[in-house]
């Protein structure tokens, strides 16, 4: 008991100078926000997915690609579940490089690439043609592709939510923000290249929901979580059935086992 108290005291004493050093640049733990899709029975909120898609399209897509999502994913079960005509309309709003025309040309008279409207089978086009162009437009920083971002970061949806809402937080005294970067206490090093992405009414929601920063962040993180795991609902649904089946089977197997072994002990 005494040893434990001494260890605890030693730990506490050692933590104080450690905290003074690390409070400056180490990332804070992500905010504790809840999402509808968490837990074994969680599902994606359809409204949040559709609103989140709107936030992605109008705010994030200027810099961030979503290359693993195809337009036909927008009308599939388990996702935003737009209708097929709606998904086709969304696709048609994007222009993609067209294949060679009958003369074999891929550019018009002025040297501009020939374009065609996207169809359901196409994937979301990236905002920049390559990494170098992306960096050149963003002060040397590369905006990551968002189609996997929620799975590719420790802390998942909570981390992405914290980054997006914490960006542009008031800078504590004594902290030096690097030139061309912004203060985000949830980002390791606390200097992030992305300017604060969300403001009140960054988008005007088509369903009339009030577009606070928290709402926009919640919706876009829900959408990005779906983008990372479009099969989540199917997975949990199947899992429930499989586990129920297995538990019943285990019960039967246990009874069979007891019966076989009844006289053997």
């Amino acid at each position, binding site marked *: 008991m005494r040893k434990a108290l001494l260890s605890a005291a030693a730990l506490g004493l050692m933590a104080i100078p450690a905290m003074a050093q690390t409070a400056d640049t180490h990332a804070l733990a992500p905010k504790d926000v809840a999402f509808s899709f968490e837990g074994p029975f969680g599902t994606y909120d359809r409204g949040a997915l559709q609103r989140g898609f709107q936030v992605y399209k109008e705010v994030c897509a200027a810099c961030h690609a979503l290359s693993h999502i195809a337009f036909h994913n927008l009308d599939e079960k388990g996702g935003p579940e737009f209708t097929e005509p709606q998904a086709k309309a969304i696709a048609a709003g994007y222009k993609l490089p067209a294949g060679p025309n009958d003369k074999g040309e891929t550019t018009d008279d002025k040297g501009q690439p020939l374009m065609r409207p996207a169809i359901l089978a196409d994937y979301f086009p990236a905002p920049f043609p390559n990494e170098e162009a992306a960096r050149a437009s963003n002060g040397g920083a590369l905006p990551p592709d968002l189609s996997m971002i929620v799975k590719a970061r420790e802390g998942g949806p909570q981390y992405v939510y914290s980054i997006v809402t914490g960006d542009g937080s008031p800078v504590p005294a004594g902290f030096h923000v690097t030139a061309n970067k912004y203060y985000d206490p949830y980002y390791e090093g606390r200097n992030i290249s992305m300017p604060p992405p969300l403001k009140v009414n960054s988008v005007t929601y088509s369903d009339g929901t009030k577009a606070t920063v928290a709402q926009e962040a919640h919706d876009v993180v829900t959408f990005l979580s779906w983008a990372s795991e*479009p099969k989540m609902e199917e997975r949990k649904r199947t*899992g429930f059935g499989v586990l129920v089946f297995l538990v019943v089977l285990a019960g039967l*197997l246990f009874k069979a086992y007891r019966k*076989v072994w009844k006289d*053997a002990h």
Partner: protein
Amino acid sequence: MSGQSTYNPKPGFETWLDQRLPLPRLMHDTMQTFPTPRNLNIWYTFGGILTFCLGVQILTGIVLAMHYVANAGLAFDSVERIMRDVNYGWLMRYVHSNGASMFFLAVYIHIFRGLYYGSYKAPRELIWILGVLIYLLMMATAFFGYVLPWGQMSFWGATVITNLFSAIPGIGQHIATWLWGDFAVGDATLNRFFSLHYLLPFIIAAVVGLHIWALHVPGNNNPLGIDVKSPQDTVPFHPYYTVKDGFYLCLFVIVFAGFVFFAPNFFGNPDNYQPANPLVTPPDIVPEWYLLPFYAMLRSIPNKLFGVIVMAGALVTLVFVPWLDTQRAVRSNRFRPLMKQFYYVFIAACLLLMYCGAQSVDAVRFGVPLVWAARLGTIYYYLYFWVLMPIIGLIETPKKLPASIAQSVLGDTAAAPAE
């Protein structure tokens, strides 16, 4: 025990087949009537579970290989296509990745069971050595497999581990270049790793066949560690152990399904959902959990070559266990109260090594740099096999063994020693 076959084929097709290829006879003798000690407990069920795991990995792996593309520019995307577009592709992928973790969980329990009950002792030394070979093949297969999705961890884990070969004096760099097929891990490396990842499981299956064949010569060991003396000591494998193994397998699959359907990325590392970037090193390069103890040993030695020798030596040590343990009178730790204590410390040392392997190299806990904890764990690991096992066998006084398995199980149960 390998003895006379009691198979009596029915007249007609069964007799015709038995005269030409005695497969049904083999099935009958090994899986139906095989005399198995009647006192096998839950720790003995993992051999069967491991066979199930191997089958699941091969089946899901073959299916994944129908859609996976082993090209550095396409691999990551092909895995995402599997997850998003292939019917039940997400299920195949998650079963395969979590299946690898379950496979290693089962193999560690299986190995620790062998260590506790002295299953490696005469006449079962070769079963143990074949088992060590299977374990090494599993680690190689898992290593190659983890590279295939071509994420950040895939690439950098491959870089770290293949770079170890460059530690060999003189020819080391040539070996590394030969392994890579390039001047660094790249497309050439990925392709050959895919080929080997597909091949090794079938080699594992063959060695598993030898492992079970070697087992069936003396028959199973048991928790008491005493030999079978009469038919009263055994029961036929079917239905006694088919139903018991079936029940425990079902429990295992429940745990497996829990991970696959509700926490499929629990064992994984988020960095591997980022495509491989040879120009950006992740802050912490960590292998999958089942390789962490050896990773910790490697990193605990500041000298690169010596670290490789210590890590490899830990695996080679396992081959010699049947001869390092000098206790010939009893097999099972149930009757070795002193050895038992050191065994539990050994488990703790392995868990400590696993924990250290997961942290960053310069991590500090309770004011202690973890690298010292890893060194402690490594020292105990070597101590346990090379010092404790030989010495304790010579100086300990084992407890008295029961007269027979049957007497222990069917007779006065109060006389049966607790675990």
